[in-house]
């Protein structure tokens, strides 16, 4: 049987090619994902492990919980504590670690690394073992800084250069005194690191006299755990908690693994979609191969092969195809993994160096996925093959394709589709998260229903295209009839394309609607001309507001200050605002009371008010950071949104209780309204700070739009794979059709249809099938997009459905392009068919 299967595979190389390609692409996606994520996570692990080389035991502040009406305050790691740790038995030395955000501008004044991995720290003493200096001398005093070698190279900075940096507001211009190398994982991952002497770091990062962590190095011969035990004895339990370097490295490894697993899962979902689409092609191909080989298989049965053996021979064939696809897919996947890493290397998002990691798991998964999927998809055709009666070998005619009634299928499909639609519609009436599960369930039911129904749907939908096809004369007519000739095959081909387009359209509708609503939310409640914030949404120093208030043309400013407090036994964040200006800077709808912030009068958003059972006039007691209490009165309740919510308190009320106030944003109103000149003025007032963003409403909108565009583009990229596989499916189907109808095509050529006409016929058939899939996909996508939006609408008052007509047109056009492209090769083949061999009966 094996030999028969092998011969069959070899005999149908060309026809199996598309199948192999489809499976291969899916497998390559899977293995590429695994190789890439494994490689990256391995590289991160190694680099982070290296980063902990200098740490035998890390001492961190004990975590203090919020209790009763008191905010928990973490104990401070002070110099005496550090000295105590350094003097502990078995300790060799101790380093106090201070870290914070430090943005570095490049020579054009632009922020290096986007702001999210811009780290600052302290250089410990004369010679810090963590940071071997390559050139220059250790920084000392407020005007000196050291840079890591990668950042220095990237920006072209050398020792002696004056550079512009920013910690939380004002721009600093220290001189680079040293360039150092480091194993710091963050730097290895493309971040920047600037070091100051310890006193400067403590001052800049608002940690006067204290450390974030104390790293203790063990004396030779002392183990990490022994040192930890000794430190635990020496240090006060309620202040310091200790962790060994090994534990830190392990924890970090787990964290890296976890953060990569999200990416991995996400990518694998898309790989799964591509593979799922591929199964349609496999099933199609094997169905056709079996149909073509009816006589041969019947002969096998006639000479004594059992049904099982026939099924097995088909499955064996599938196994071989799957194995070939798995091998090539794995190789392609390794290529993709290597390529992606190289790509990330050339982008700013540098990843630590490391070897390409191909685990046995990757290899096993690739083979399992490739072979199992192929065999699974070939199972039904295999069973059908077994049902061929031995007598079929004797009949001279090809057994006609089983035109089994579609009645059962249609009934089943209608049931599924109706149930799915009903559940989805029901879910839209539920609110928010309650509706998610039923909606997902309904969506799956509906998609399955549509799959089952596509053969039925193909007739009316394609008949609808008849008027358009009539323009193309006899080619158009034949194309239309050919496309509904084998409804199951047409359906499977179109479904493959449908899946991708459903997802793409659904995502686009949702993203477009969400973007619109978030945009509205972000800008409609805002009267301010500008919003000033940190590039990475870190907090700003209050100096920023002061500087802005003094700038030309500024009429009003208010910070949005975050202050933790205990209210009614819970931790709440108060929003500190300038009570006299906030009313003019925002446009919030007041539900009850008045919008009045000052002294002990505050305004509260409707959500918070409901949680606490407050209304206008209610009073409550708040316990501040310094544990002092105050009685506040709710002056009004306003309608909150995602951007502005919470308890608004005047900064003057908060000020006496705060040691280190931090602003999240500053709202600015100017007399001229937003203009380029005004914006320039504000930026100048802040000293052209690379880390601070000055944005008008349009900028905020653009930012939001950009975020959505980026997300959508990524999704499009990932879903492109499913579309490519679907294209292979269309090619496959057309090639099959051309092959099966070679006699008809030969006749048409003989009686006078020229090559162009034949090509046009195949192309139009392809177009019809693709557009059929496209219309179904876009239709379903819009429905799902609408339904998911209905769920969100409950949570977002500003939600409204936005139908991206232009995009939908593009998607349909894409389907048409898919059709035309897929037909290129089959159409050429059809046109080149040898008439004579085609019209000779077998």
């Amino acid at each position: 049987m094996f030999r028969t299967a092998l011969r069959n595979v070899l005999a149908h190389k060309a026809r199996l090619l598309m199948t192999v390609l489809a499976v291969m692409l899916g497998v390559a996606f899977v293995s590429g994902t695994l190789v890439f994520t494994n490689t990256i996570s391995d590289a991160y692990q190694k680099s982070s492990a290296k980063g902990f080389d200098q740490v035998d035991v890390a001492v961190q502040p004990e975590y203090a919980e919020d209790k009763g009406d008191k905010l928990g305050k973490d104990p401070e790691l002070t110099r005496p504590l550090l000295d105590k740790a350094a003097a502990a038995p078995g300790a060799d030395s101790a380093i106090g670690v201070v870290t914070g955000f430090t943005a570095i501008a490049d020579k054009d004044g632009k922020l290096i690394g986007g702001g999210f991995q811009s780290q600052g720290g302290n250089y410990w003493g004369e010679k810090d073992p963590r940071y071997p200096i390559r050139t220059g001398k250790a920084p000392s005093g407020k005007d000196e800084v050291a840079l890591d070698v990668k950042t220095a190279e990237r920006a072209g900075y050398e020792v002696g250069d004056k550079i512009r940096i920013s910690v939380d507001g004002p721009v600093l211009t220290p001189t680079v005194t040293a360039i150092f190398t480091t194993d710091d994982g963050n730097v290895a991952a493309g971040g920047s690191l600037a070091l100051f002497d310890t006193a400067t770091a403590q001052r800049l990062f608002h940690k006067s006299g204290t450390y974030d962590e104390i790293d203790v190095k063990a004396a030779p011969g002392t183990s990490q755990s022994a040192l930890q035990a000794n430190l635990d004895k020496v240090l006060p339990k309620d202040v310091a908690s200790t962790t060994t370097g090994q534990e830190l490295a392990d924890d970090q490894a787990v964290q890296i693994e976890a953060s990569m697993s999200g990416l991995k899962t996400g990518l694998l979902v898309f790989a799964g979609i591509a593979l799922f689409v591929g199964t349609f092609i496999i099933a199609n191909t094997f169905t056709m191969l079996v149909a073509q080989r009816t006589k041969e298989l019947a002969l096998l049965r006639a000479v004594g092969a059992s049904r099982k053996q026939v099924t097995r021979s088909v499955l064996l064939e599938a196994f071989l195809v799957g194995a070939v696809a798995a091998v090539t897919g794995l190789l392609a996947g390794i290529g993709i993994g290597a390529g992606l890493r190289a790509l990330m290397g050339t982008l700013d998002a540098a990843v630590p160096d490391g070897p390409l990691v191909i685990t046995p798991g990757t290899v096993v998964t690739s083979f399992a996925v490739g072979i199992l999927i192929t065999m699974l998809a070939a199972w039904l055709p295999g069973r059908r093959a077994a049902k061929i009666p031995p007598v079929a070998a004797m009949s001279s005619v090809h057994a006609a394709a089983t035109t089994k009634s579609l009645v059962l299928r249609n009934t089943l499909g209608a049931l599924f589709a109706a149930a799915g639609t009903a559940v989805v519609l029901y879910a839209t009436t539920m609110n928010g998260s309650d509706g998610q599960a039923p909606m997902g369930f309904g969506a799956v039911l509906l998609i399955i229903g549509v799959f089952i129904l596509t053969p039925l749907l193909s007739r009316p939908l394609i008949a609808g295209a008849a008027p358009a096809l009539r323009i193309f004369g006899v080619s158009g007519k034949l194309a239309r009839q050919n496309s509904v000739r084998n409804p199951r095959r047409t359906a499977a081909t179109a479904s493959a394309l449908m899946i991708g387009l459903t997802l793409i359209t659904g995502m686009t509708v949702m993203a477009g609607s969400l973007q619109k609503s978030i945009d509205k939310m972000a800008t409609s409640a805002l009267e301010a001309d500008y919003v000033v914030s940190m590039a990475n949404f870190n907090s700003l120093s209050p100096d920023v507001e002061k500087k802005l208030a003094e700038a030309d043309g500024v009429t009003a400013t208010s910070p949005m200050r975050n202050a933790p407090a205990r209210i009614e036994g819970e931790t709440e964040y108060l929003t500190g605002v300038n009570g006299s200006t906030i009313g003019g800077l925002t446009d919030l709808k007041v539900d009850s009371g008045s919008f009045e912030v000052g002294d002990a009068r505050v305004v509260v958003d409707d959500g918070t008010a409901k949680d606490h059972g407050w209304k206008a006039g209610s009073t409550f007691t708040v316990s501040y950071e310094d544990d002092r209490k105050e009685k506040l009165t709710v002056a009004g309740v306003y309608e909150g949104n995602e951007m502005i919510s919470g308890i608004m308190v005047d900064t003057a009320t908060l000020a006496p209780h705060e040691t280190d106030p931090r602003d999240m944003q500053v709202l600015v109103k100017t007399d001229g309204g937003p203009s380029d000149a005004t914006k320039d003025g504000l930026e100048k007032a802040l000293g052209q700070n690379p880390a601070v963003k000055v944005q008008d409403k349009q900028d905020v909108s653009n930012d939001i739009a950009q975020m959505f565009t980026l997300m959508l583009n990524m999704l499009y990229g990932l879903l492109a794979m499913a579309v490519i596989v679907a294209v292979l499916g269309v090619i496959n189907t057309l090639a099959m059709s051309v092959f099966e109808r070679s006699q008809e095509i030969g006749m048409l050529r003989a009686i006078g249809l020229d090559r162009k006409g034949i090509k046009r016929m195949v192309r139009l058939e392809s177009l019809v099938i693709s557009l059929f899939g496209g219309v179904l996909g876009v239709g379903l996508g819009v429905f799902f997009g609408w339904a998911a939006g209905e769920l969100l609408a409950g949570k977002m008052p500003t939600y409204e459905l936005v139908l991206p007509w232009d995009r939908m047109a593009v998607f349909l056009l894409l389907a048409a392009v898919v059709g035309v492209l897929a037909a290129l090769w089959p159409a050429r083949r059809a046109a080149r068919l040898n008439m004579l061999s085609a019209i000779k009966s077998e």
Partner: protein
Amino acid sequence: MTTTPLAERTTAVAARATELSKVYGQGETQVVALDRVSVDFRQAEFTAIMGPSGSGKSTLMHCVAGLDSFSSGSVRIGETELGSLKDKQLTKLRRDKIGFIFQAFNLLPTLTALENITLPMDIAGRKPDKQWLDTVIAMVGLADRLSHRPSQLSGGQQQRVAVARALASRPDIIFGDEPTGNLDSRSGAEVLGFLRNSVRELGQTVVMVTHDPVAAAYADRVVFLADGRVVDEVHAPTADAVLDRMKRFDSKGRTS
């Protein structure tokens, strides 16, 4: 198209092959399928081409009908020399001047009988001549089967559709490639009768390749081919005369 006087009909040539050769392969493996064949097919004449397997009879027909290329010599359909035509022109020639009947019927299963009959004109984008179409349909006796699909018709009926298709566009010449090969003798006789009637009554020119002496007996003339050459010609044949002639090939032994 127009009714030509009988005298002229018998002399005018619908298709002519002159010194026609067709050679496959090169050197040692060279096979000569046609060896300087010269033959005329006169208008309003029913010609049968016969010969043992491998004699080149099908190749001759394919070359004359513009379905296959030839190595040397010339082929004319009416006034048109085929040798110089490109594929596109050949296709147009087949569409407008030639009708075909194949052994395997070769109807499109998706089209109805009527649509199959008018297919050549659909391809050309011409409206069929209604009156002529009715005449042809009536002749082949398909009037009540026009909306059936090929799968709903018997083999004989399918071949009658094919005959009607060939006649419907009033081609200069109709080529049949074993048109009765897949039919039982009764259906075969019917089809041959139609072909003969089309020649006698409608002045159609028909050339048919066959290996069946009974079929050949319907023709006005039988041309015998062997080893790629015309070896004999019989006018007003009877089945017995054809059979006798064929037997002489057999006694020489079949060539392939």
